[in-house]
């Protein structure tokens, strides 16, 4: 195996798609964490909650373990996913750290789906929080951005195939 095997031209498209999705994901990550994802009205008190705000509230209600899980799943995991994918894309074509990149990709692929926890949490809270003034949960625009980040990262990691880590030169333009 002296010369590298020919790279399929579809991988060029995959690389472009992945780049576009990662950049979109990074841009959307900011509003997703700044804009509230929901407002909770409890006995007349309206409370807008961002993703981090929700975690903080859980922590203050004496549930540090649950808060930790939600923090990991909805803030750390998407960040790690975007960071790892950026690393893979920047290092694409080089021969350094290929083993580490393969391991990192595998880990990110494995834990990636747990970031959906916050969207499901919103869905469950919105479902039962329909008691008018007593308790109501309303989704806010942050939910759009958060869902968009998740969709971007899921499709980005699907489009960067593990074999592409081992391709040592850029695919040719078609």
């Amino acid at each position, binding site marked *: 195996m002296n010369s590298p095997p020919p790279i399929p031209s579809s991988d060029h498209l995959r690389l472009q798609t992945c780049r576009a999705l990662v950049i979109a994901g990074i841009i959307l990550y900011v509003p997703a964490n700044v804009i509230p994802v929901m407002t909770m009205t409890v006995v007349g008190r309206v409370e807008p909650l961002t993703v981090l705000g929700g975690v903080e509230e859980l922590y203050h209600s004496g549930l540090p373990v649950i808060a930790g899980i939600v923090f990991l799943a909805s803030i750390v995991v998407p960040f790690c996913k975007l960071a790892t994918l950026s690393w893979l894309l920047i290092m694409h074509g080089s021969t350094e750290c290929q083993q580490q990149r393969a391991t990192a990709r595998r880990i990110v692929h494995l834990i990636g789906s747990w970031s959906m*926890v916050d969207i*499901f*949490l919103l869905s469950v809270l919105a479902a039962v929080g329909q008691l008018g003034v007593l308790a109501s949960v309303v989704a806010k625009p942050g939910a*759009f951005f958060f869902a968009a980040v998740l969709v971007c990262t899921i499709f980005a990691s699907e489009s960067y195939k593990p074999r592409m880590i081992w391709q040592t030169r850029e695919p040719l333009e078609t």
Partner: protein
Amino acid sequence: MTELSSPTPRWISCPECEAACREVPLPPRAVLHCRRCGVVVRKSTRPTSLQPAWALATAGLLLMVMANVTPIMSFDVAGNTQTNLIGTGVITLYKQGYWPVAGLVFFSAIAAPALYLATVWYVVAACCLARPWPGLHRMLTWAEILESWNLVPVFALATLVSVVKLDTLGTVTWHHGAIWLAVLSICAFLTSQLFDHRMVEERLEELA
């Protein structure tokens, strides 16, 4: 694929990095790792091991129905009660104008797990019964795509978190749906663990 037991080495492609690996006869319980990326390429598995996957997929499909039609919990504040199903949140989000989010929740909590279990059931049942049903290869591809969307365990965790959160605001009562949901998440997880793609592919080649 016929010279599986012949002494001449066969080259197989690594399922992850697609490197060519030399296949060697494996002693029982041994695994063959890819020399390039280190992933498990071959496992010596027992020939009957597709049946647990079939059983779990069947159970999963039945539980999928049960978990979706039985209320999971109800939330009570000062005598006002609201009960929820998995689908209630989807409808509420849709009504509040967040239809893309509602669509995402519907797809990843209801549609994709159901389709995943159904495709796995179809492929594994065809293998176990040795029936060359139509479209098996396409179904296998679909099962591979849908595997990462099998998010029922994540939904179960979200339900648990929401109960803990709501418990500080009012009274939360569990219903039977919660049990179905918990068992369904275990079934869905185990199905994806026991669904052996290579074994299915080999069986499909024998069938054709």
